[in-house]
Each structure stands twice: as structure tokens, then as C-alpha cells.
């Protein structure tokens, strides 16, 4: 095969590779929204065991009060989650991948502690 044909073929293959990856990712993230959100929402300590964080070792924006941890796929996430305005969040009707984690000794991370639960 002629050298210039090699060169052109190679560059075209690289170009096709880039397009495939870009188009696939575009479809995945923009169209299908096929990726999970991880977010903290407000938690009612009298109803559930909630997480609280040490003020000296946390971000007050989303760890200011009692919170629960939510994992949900972006396609089913309600807008209040992105805006951090959800109250009494529940996974009902939000798809099988939605999961709410309340505070427990297994779920604790550095600087976190659990509130007492009345449930």
C-alpha cells in the first residue's frame, strides 16, 4: 500500500475513533442521562437516623444540618435534588437505582456521626 494511503488511513481511523467515543458519550450523558447522582438531602431526625458532620471538618453548604445520602440515576432525579430544595425525599417511583442511605455505624465516614432515631 502506498505510504500516503497508510498515512491517510491511519489519520482517518483516529478521527473515526474520536467521533465514536464523543458521540457515544454525548448520547450517554446528554440524551440517556445514564449516570448516577450522589447527593445529600435534608433528613428529619425525629423520623430517621440522620447523618451529622463535625463543623470543623465539613462543608456547611451541604453538611450544615442533619442529612441523608441519596444515590439516584440522573434520568430519574427530580429537579429539587439538583437545587438542594427537596424536603422529605423519597425514592418512590424514581426508578430501581434510587437508594436512600440513612445513618448507621457502617455508613459513617470521617467526621460524621448519627442522630438518634425515633422511628
Amino acid at each position: 500500500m502506498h505510504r500516503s494511503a497508510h498515512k491517510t488511513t491511519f489519520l482517518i481511523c483516529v478521527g473515526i475513533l474520536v467521533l465514536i467515543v464523543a458521540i457515544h458519550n454525548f448520547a450517554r450523558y446528554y440524551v440517556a442521562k445514564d449516570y448516577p447522582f450522589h447527593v445529600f438531602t435534608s433528613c428529619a431526625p425525629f423520623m430517621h437516623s440522620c447523618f451529622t458532620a463535625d463543623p470543623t471538618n465539613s462543608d456547611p453548604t451541604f453538611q450544615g444540618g442533619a442529612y441523608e445520602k441519596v444515590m439516584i440515576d440522573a434520568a430519574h432525579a427530580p429537579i429539587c435534588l439538583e437545587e438542594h430544595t427537596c424536603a422529605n425525599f423519597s425514592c418512590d417511583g424514581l426508578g430501581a437505582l434510587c437508594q436512600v442511605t440513612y445513618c448507621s455505624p457502617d455508613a459513617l465516614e470521617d467526621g460524621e456521626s448519627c442522630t438518634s432515631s425515633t422511628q
Partner: protein
Amino acid sequence: MLAYFIHAQYCYEYLVNQIPMGLLLYSHLPTSLLALAFGTYVLFKARTLPAFLFFNVCLMFAIWAAFDLSAWFAFLGADNVMFTWSLLDFFAVLMFFFTYYFLYTFVTGKDLPLWQKLIGIAILLPTTVIAFMGVNIPTYDLNSCTALEDNAYTIYTYIAEGIYILVTIAFLTIEYLKKKERTQRRRTLLAGTGVLIFLGFFFSASFLVSLYASSDASSYVYNYLIYGLFGMPVFLIYLGYLIVRYHAFNLKTFGVQALVVALIAVLASEFAFVTTLTSRVLVAVTLILTGIIGTQLIRSVKREIEQREHIEKLAGDLEKANEQQIVLIHFITHQIKGFVTKSRNIFSMVLEGDFGSVPEQMKPMLEEGFSSDTKGMNTIQEILNAANIKSGKVTYAMAPFDMKLFIEEIAKELKPAADAKGLEFTLDLGMGTDVVTGDRGQLVNVFKNLIDNSIKYTQKGTVTVRLKKETGKVIFTIEDTGVGITPEDMKNLFTEGGHGKESTKVNVESTGFGLYIVKNIIDAHKGKVWAESEGAGKGSRFIVELPA
């Protein structure tokens, strides 16, 4: 205007005080626009493989910078952040690959061998698969508005980039040592240094962030991450210098053009930083003025360069024409000399009685013919000598000889001509010997010419030849009471074809090359020759100094 782009109000409010927006815009937008503009210009003008690959590097960098900026500006929305962030490592590694590919073709002038292309792709493939599957950023953290990275996968990006950098260093070392010519070595070094600065800054910035992102030094490394992009303008400066100095990509751009464009780009990028209306107006005014003045400057410099090139071309054409003229003169004079020599020989043979005795009434005619042909031959020889001297074809065989005996011989030969005109011909050559080193054959032309001229241009009176020795030199002087030399004629005396007005009245057959030949021969002997005269009709004095 910014409000139009805010799709996640929470993220905007969360990030606006944390990230240096101005610095982000200043480091990302102008650098990538500059790179794209430079790359497009080179590709448009050069249309070669290195130019195309360089454009690719700039394109990958611009895409990476746009995606990185987008990832920083999480208020554009989670989808946007995830999409752009997922492709960052992919485009970064691709950019490293194309940078190495570009450098290879730029330095060697050849395409990258297939085996290297395959290895390059093999290094790229894991990053491609990771980006395709999205395993490098498994989750989007809505709390901090960032994609959470899986370090197990992102570490591979640094390994790949590190490999490309090491391969680049190895390649440059080999190529630098292979090249023998200084210009080629310098070109390789410049291109290589520019590339390594660019890749090094880029790699170190992202690598340091990955190491220290969770530490107390995180704010410093995040700022360095931003500054890491300035490796690209440095790379462009190196390439700009290569284009201007070494006509890289076969582009004929000159320094002023590159400087003005760079100045405009830097000024324009100020808009990313300045916020007040007054500052923006000032920047805009400065930009417009720089554009106008810069354009005029480029035009005038371009005109000067074109004129200089035109003059150089004309000089080249003139030199060629001169060479052709000399060849023509040689050809013509040789041909004519041949005819004249033949004719002179015939006259000589007839006069010597080779064809029997010559009638007395014929003798004056034959002698006149012989004399005329002899003068003709001498004239032709003089023209030939001048042409040889002008073309630098004369070589001198230097040897020591006694100047006194030398002048005596010449004077003895020419004295009859002086006696025939009734001139008093005096020799004052001093005592002892005066040894000089020179080419006797060429110097005969000098002193014969000077003495002969003196006799020719003196109607009555005296012709005196003197020889004097001083420390380190021998001085020859010939003084006459002849037509003299006007100040006007003095200027053209020793020039090619230089005639004096009075001399042409006396000697219409003068070629004007005699004294030109004398000067050139004396100059070649590291001596000096000059003339002195009180003016027309007041005689003249010719002095020759030769090193002893």
C-alpha cells in the same frame, strides 16, 4: 449575559466564590484561541503533514481547554460536566500522541513509522476504552458539583502521558546526536524544547493536582493546574521563532508580523480579566490602535523586505551579466588578437625578406602596417589583461629581484622613443641594490606603462625616472613636463576606462585600461601608486611604492 448559561443555580452559588473565574477564562480561552489560530494559519499556508499534525495538536489542546473550562463551570449543568469531564483524559492522551507525531515529522521530515503509530495507538487504547465506558467518573457529586473520579483508572492517563514524554526525550536525544549540521541541530533543539515545556507543564499540573487535591496544599495545586496551560503559548513562541528564523513549514513570515499578532492576542485576552466599563473601553481602544499601527508596520516592513529581495535579485542579475560580458570580451579579443597577430606576422616576414627583397617605395607602407598591427595587438592585450584582472583570474608568481636592474632594462628599451621626440630622458636610480619581491612579468607591464605614458604625454622638456630606497620600501618616481592632470581627471585616473580630457587630445588611441591595470597589479603586490600634478600643462609625477 452569564445568567443565560446558568442551568444549575446551586452550583453557580456554590462555585462562584471558590473558583477564580477570571483566571480560568484568561488561561483557557486566549491560549486555546491563539493555538487554534496559529495552527490554522500554519495549515492553511503550508499544507504539509507536519503542518496538519501541528494543527491537530492545537485542535486537541483547544478541545481539551474548552472541555476543561466546561467541567470547571458546573453551573452549565451536570450533563455537561459529565460529558466533558469523561473525555478530558482521552483528549489529553491523544494530544500527547499527536505532539510526538508532529515533532517526529517536523524534525525528520518523514512520516512516523507504522510500528510507532501502532504503539502510539496501543497506549491510547486503554484511555479510549475507559472514556467510552465512563468508568473513570462513575458518579456525579451534586454536593460539590464535580464528577467523582476513580483513581484506579485516572492513574493510567499519567502513565500514558509520562511514556510519551520519555519517548520524546529519547527521540530528541537520538536525533540531536545524529544531526551534524549546526542549523539542523539548533532547529531540533528549539522544536524539542518547546514541545517538552508544553508537555511538561501540562503533565505536571494535572499530576500534582491528583497527588495533592485532598491535602492542605490543594488550593495551590489547583491554581498551578490553571497555570499549566501557559505551556502552550511558550510552545507557540518557540514555533514562531522557528518560522521566522528558520522558515519552518517553509513559511516566510517575519518577526514583525509574528510580534504584532502576538501583541494583539495578548491585548484581546485582557477582556477575560477586566470587569469595569472604563477598563474595557481602554483595552478596546488600545487594541484598535495596536491593530492599526501594527498593520501599517507590517506593511512597511514587508515593503522593505520586498525591496531588499528585489535589489538582491538585481545584484545577482548584474553579477551574471558582468560574468557574461567578461566571457564575451575574452572571446572577441582572442578572436581579433588572432587575426591581428597573423597580419603582423605577415608584415614582419615580408619586411625581413622572407619572400624576397622589398621595393623601397613599399617599405614605409609595410612598416606602417607592421606598426599598426603591433599597436593593435598591444591594445587588445591591454583589454584582455583588464578583463582578467576584473574577473580575478590573474595569479602572481612572486620572487625576489633587483628593482634597479629591472628599471634600467625597461628604461633602455623605451629611451629611443624619448630620444625620437627630443626629450631629455634621465635615470637616477641611486647606489647599491634594491631588492623587492614580486611578479616580474606583471610588474614589467606597470613600469613600461608608466614610463611609456610619460613619454607619450610630454611634447617637450624632460622625463626623469628615480628610484629610492627607504626603510621597508622602494619608491619609484617618474616625473615629466608633459600635459599634466587636472583635478577633475585625477578622480578617474586609475579607474576602468578612465580617460583624462587632455590625454585624449594627445593620445586618441588610449584604451583607458592602462592605469587601471597598473593599480590592480600594484595593489596585488601590497604596494601603492598615485599621481601628483599642479594642473593642466604643468607636468605630472607618478609614484609607486613597493614593500622591500
